[in-house]
């Protein structure tokens, strides 16, 4: 490659990475806003914040097409935003507003943005893995080259549905990518203490004859490239891939969890490996000026501040909405 071609490639890579950095910053700030709004009593129920996991959602989305399908867990804010869901609609959903992304009928654990191919967040651990297999199956039946991705936590790897889904996906050689976000803790218990293998997802893949990668889930470029390889295999008809991405959550499991069970030195080590910090270093290496990165941060902050303002001002849902959207006719009538 000539020097100018190398320079052009770096500029392009820098621009793409800067866009991913900005999306990660939007997610980080949305999660911080959700946390603050919860402390202020404006977010009810519970939240499972994904601060620390941003590189997985954003890196994977960068490797996917807009018409691919993704399924997530109850920790799904980052995937919803990565797939184009607006922070305003997500925060409005958490604040039980009519403008919520699911009309205030889903809540934090069930964010869905079908327009962006984000087909839902599921709060029963592991339940959505077979659903992603089904979406991949339908892509084959409909002769499209869409793929399906299931994001799930390390805790899901000990659920029966995980194993049923992996087996079926491999037997049918379906275009599905399984992405385990291993943040080392299920809820409060270290996954290692209750799992027979060191890497709960990656080490199980050989049992199903499935291709697998073990990656750094905090480096958005590493995630993007791994998911791109898996997506290419899937689209080429070569079957599913299991990716285990090691990461760390910055907050506790859910809103009431201060995560005191984690050793201080472990937390400190992982916070040094913050996905935003890693992305900044990579941007600097690609020659992106610090001012441009700060500008991306400023835009992210502005977007989320405006989202918080709008979500706060939005009205509550109309009471009649409790009785819509059960059936395809829009209503909920169960008898005549």
């Amino acid at each position, binding site marked *: 490659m000539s020097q100018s071609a190398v320079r052009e490639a770096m500029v392009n890579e820098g621009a793409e990475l800067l866009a991913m950095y900005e999306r990660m910053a939007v997610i980080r700030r949305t999660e911080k806003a959700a946390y603050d709004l919860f402390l202020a009593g404006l977010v009810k129920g519970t939240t499972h914040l994904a601060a620390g996991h941003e590189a997985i959602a954003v890196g994977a989305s960068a490797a996917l097409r807009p018409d691919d399908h993704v399924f997530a867990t109850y920790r799904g804010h980052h995937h919803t935003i990565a797939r184009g869901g607006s922070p305003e609609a997500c925060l409005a959903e958490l604040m039980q507003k009519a403008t919520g992304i699911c*009309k205030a009928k889903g809540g934090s654990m069930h964010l869905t943005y*079908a327009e962006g191919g984000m087909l*839902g967040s599921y709060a029963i651990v592991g339940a959505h893995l077979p659903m992603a297999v089904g979406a991949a199956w339908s892509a084959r*039946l409909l002769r499209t080259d869409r793929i*399906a991705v299931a994001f799930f936590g390390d805790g899901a790897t000990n659920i029966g549905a995980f194993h049923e889904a992996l087996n*079926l996906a491999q037997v049918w050689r379906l275009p599905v990518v399984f992405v385990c976000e291993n943040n080392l803790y299920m809820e409060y218990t270290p996954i290692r203490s209750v799992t027979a293998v060191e890497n709960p997802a990656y080490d199980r893949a050989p049992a199903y004859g499935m291709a697998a990668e073990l990656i750094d889930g905090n480096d958005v470029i590493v995630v993007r490239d791994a998911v791109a390889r898996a997506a290419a295999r899937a689209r080429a008809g070569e079957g599913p891939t299991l990716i285990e991405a090691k990461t760390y959550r910055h907050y506790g499991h859910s809103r009431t969890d201060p995560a005191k069970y984690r050793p201080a030195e472990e937390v400190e080590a992982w916070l040094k490996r913050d996905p935003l910090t890693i992305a900044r270093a990579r941007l600097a290496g690609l020659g992106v000026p610090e001012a441009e990165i700060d500008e991306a941060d400023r835009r992210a902050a502005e977007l989320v501040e405006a989202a918080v303002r709008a979500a706060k001002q939005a009205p509550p849902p109309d009471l009649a909405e409790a009785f819509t*959207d059960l*059936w395809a006719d829009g209503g909920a009538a169960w008898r005549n």
Partner: protein
Amino acid sequence: MAELTGTISYREAVAEGIAREMRRDPTVVCLGEDIGAAGGVFKTTQGLLEEFGAERVWDTPISEQAIVGAALGAAMTGIRPVAEIMFSDFLACCWDYLANEIPKVRYMSGGQVKVPLVIRTANGGGLGFGAQHSQAVENWALTIPGLKIAAPSTPADVIGLMAAAIRSDDPVIVFEHKGLFASRGPRPPEGHVVELGRAAVVREGRDVTVLALAATVPTALAAAERLAADHGVSAEVIDLRCLIPLDMTTVLESVARTSRLVTVEENPHQGGWGGTVVSLVVEEGFELLDAPVRRVASANVPLPFADVLENEVIPTVDRVVAAVRSVVDY
């Protein structure tokens, strides 16, 4: 495949009903254990693999969660899957999907996603299969808002309700009854559809309304014949055909004519569908009644293996006759 004219068996009607929909809609596909080359353990999918090929008739591993979970994911993304869970007892292996995923996807997404999914399963007892292969579990499904429930009693209704279930954009569980597979009836014409949520008055009568579903319909009809012949009682028999949507209009109109009600359920008395129907009749039609309502249901025990014991705990013609006589003589 089934013969082209005359009568058709209930078992053949299942395959015929699915085949008719697969012919008219290329997005209809089947999946389940032993449904392909084996033609189904009850021979209810015979001929489908031969006609539609392995691309549309998928044999699965014994993985009930994967079967209904994959069917759900496919239904959300443009396919109309017809998933078989071999025995209805095995629905418990995928209860999460029945209770938590399938019925809630549309609602909790605020209407963003539709779920045109059919789950078929062989339900019910009377064949000496023992406690884990004989249950009538329609009451399980009835506890969950968001599922439609069909349970045909005749081959024509199998075909008509299967058409409506497969064409529905809502998830439908179709309970096929094991005890009815060998029964025969008229073969319905092409295009036959039975709307979900429309009960059928299968025998008109003046003295008492007998509500039945699936295999209890022939039981109720046999009881009605004996009541007419031996006791001079004119029983009206209603086949509910669906539990959700529930056709209370037909039920209340009938009770208005007869002023007496007996339900005949195969699910256990505890938590059975008759309890729901009776509560509505009492709430909305109390003044129509001239006698207490009676429910004939299975006993609250696991189904025993021996024929004589199983017969002792499930609804029989004798039990229906006795229940009807008690409300008529009240």
